[in-house]
């Protein structure tokens, strides 16, 4: 029997819960897929549905070679038999059982010898040997998270569903445990569907990102696809592509599109088959905009687009600064660009409020939204 070629999970489900409508078509292989979306989009609902804890109104779910839900064929495998590892938010560890008791819980029908060797294996992989006999309230947040992970993995599920697994941890620990999860996934090639609304998490973990809004998938692709080429301005906002600008089109030729960007003639190269009308919506990631040093006069022969702006807002965010520039030249209208730069660069460039700087944008980083 070949498992290659067959996706690990194929789900097409429709689900109406009161006023909320879930309509999802999802396919995944032995990869880590991040389900990313704002709170209240129905991400947790989708996980619970896949686990069999909720029953959708229609659709079909396949896990590996098995059909686990298909109302037309009267199939609705209960959660007990789905072999789905489920890690809910806040882990839901059994408070009256020890770490070992929690991990053993799903191994109740194993042979005692196998059960104990599986337990030892997981304790070792998850580095939990030192807390075997402690209760969940007596261990650290990171240990709780690893215990929940070990418990979910113990019966060797066909897929792992994780709901905000890092949300309850501090930033340093979070980064560390993310790397651990990645290592684990690479080692066992376990399909993992992970829910998060943390952008950094989505980017660092995902083989593939699935954007989820209002109960449906609005875009999916590689992480760079969704980060650099969001389908809509709304997704761009979710992906922290903060500069979304409408510009009039002057000419659409075989070389590209000529636009009038705040009074500047700019050519965005490329073949576009779509007809854009007379207006183009473009997006630029704040970290893709360069601030040109005072002493370095911008070189016009570079293909960069230059704007001159005055800093109106400086938002320090620990690792970086988010600066809002009011564009003063060449435009006369009210225009703004948001720029993110790392903290040390911010310090060296002598940037205070009201400082006027030249901003450089490479045309290749300008994303064009197709209508």
């Amino acid at each position, binding site marked *: 029997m070949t498992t290659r070629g067959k996706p690990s999970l194929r789900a097409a489900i429709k689900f109406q819960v009161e006023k909320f409508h879930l309509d999802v078509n999802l396919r995944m292989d032995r990869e880590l897929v991040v389900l990313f979306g704002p709170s209240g989009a129905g991400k947790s609902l989708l996980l*619970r549905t896949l686990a069999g804890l909720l029953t959708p109104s229609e659709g079909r779910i396949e896990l590996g070679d098995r059909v686990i839900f298909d109302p037309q064929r009267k199939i609705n495998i209960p959660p007990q038999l789905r072999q789905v590892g*489920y890690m809910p938010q806040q882990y839901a560890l059994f408070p009256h059982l020890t770490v070992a008791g929690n991990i053993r*819980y799903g191994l109740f029908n194993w042979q005692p010898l196998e059960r104990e060797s599986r337990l030892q294996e997981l304790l070792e992989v998850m580095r939990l040997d030192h807390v075997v006999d402690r209760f969940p309230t007596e261990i650290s947040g990171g240990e709780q998270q690893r215990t929940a992970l070990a418990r979910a993995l113990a019966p060797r599920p066909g897929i792992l569903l994780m709901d905000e697994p890092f949300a309850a941890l501090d930033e340093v620990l979070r980064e560390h445990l993310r790397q651990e999860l990645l290592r684990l996934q690479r080692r066992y090639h376990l399909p993992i569907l992970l829910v998060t609304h943390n952008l950094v998490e989505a980017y660092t973990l995902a083989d593939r990102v699935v954007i989820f809004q209002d109960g449906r998938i609005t875009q999916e692709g590689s992480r760079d696809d969704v980060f650099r080429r969001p389908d809509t301005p709304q997704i761009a906002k979710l992906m922290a592509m903060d500069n979304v600008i409408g510009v009039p089109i002057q000419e659409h030729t075989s070389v590209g599109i000529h636009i009038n960007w705040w009074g500047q003639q700019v050519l965005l190269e490329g073949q576009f088959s779509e007809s854009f009308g007379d207006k183009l919506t473009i997006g630029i990631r704040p970290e893709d905009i360069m601030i040109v040093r005072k002493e370095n006069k911008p070189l016009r022969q570079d293909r960069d687009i230059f704007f001159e702006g005055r800093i109106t807002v400086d938002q320090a965010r620990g690792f970086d600064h988010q600066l809002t520039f009011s564009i003063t030249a060449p435009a006369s209208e009210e225009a703004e660009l948001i720029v993110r730069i790392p903290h040390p660069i911010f310090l060296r460039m002598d940037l205070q409020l009201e400082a006027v700087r030249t901003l450089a944008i490479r045309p290749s980083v300008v994303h064009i939204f197709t209508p």
Partner: protein
Amino acid sequence: MNSFLIPLLLSIRVASVATLLALALGIPAAAALSRKHRLISNILDAVANLPLVLPPTVLGYYLLVFLGTRSPFGAILENMGIRLTFTWYGASIAAALVAFPLIVQSTRAALEAVDPTLEDVARTLGRSNFNIFLTISLPLAWQGVLAGTMLAFSRALGEFGATLLVAGNIPGSTQTLPIAIYDAVQSGNQDLANSMALILTITAIILLFLIRRLAQGVNRQ
């Protein structure tokens, strides 16, 4: 001295058996009620709380009619050589019926306080719902069950109306402490009534104190 020892020991025996009976029926009832099937839950809820609202004499009367030798059920028992009315078994059943809602309410509240996500995770780990009830829900609700048990025991210990109707007032056989107090007052034996009332009062205070401690323990978690 001996005149209240016999009713006291009988009372403890009746209340213990009644509490066990009420537990055996009350825990499954509470489990059924804590599920969220609305219609079934509402009907069961009304039935379970009926003994709290009805006067004990009414309960006792129903039990007498139902268990008595002239009822079909009583006749069957009679043929098997079992007699419930006017025996301490009957007194236990009467006390169990009165104590039943206390177990149900307390257990139900404790079961509903158990995080349903724990049960969800347990299901994805392959355990049956009944198994989850025994290994997760009930162990996490034990304080509530215990509090209910103590309340039920104190209530069963003090049962009067239903017991009198079902089991009568037979010294040494069905004359429990509350009935013996009634008897002593009727026959003008004030001293005996005083000491027996004192025993019941002290027992009740101790039990209430323990329940209170238990509730504080739950809150601290």
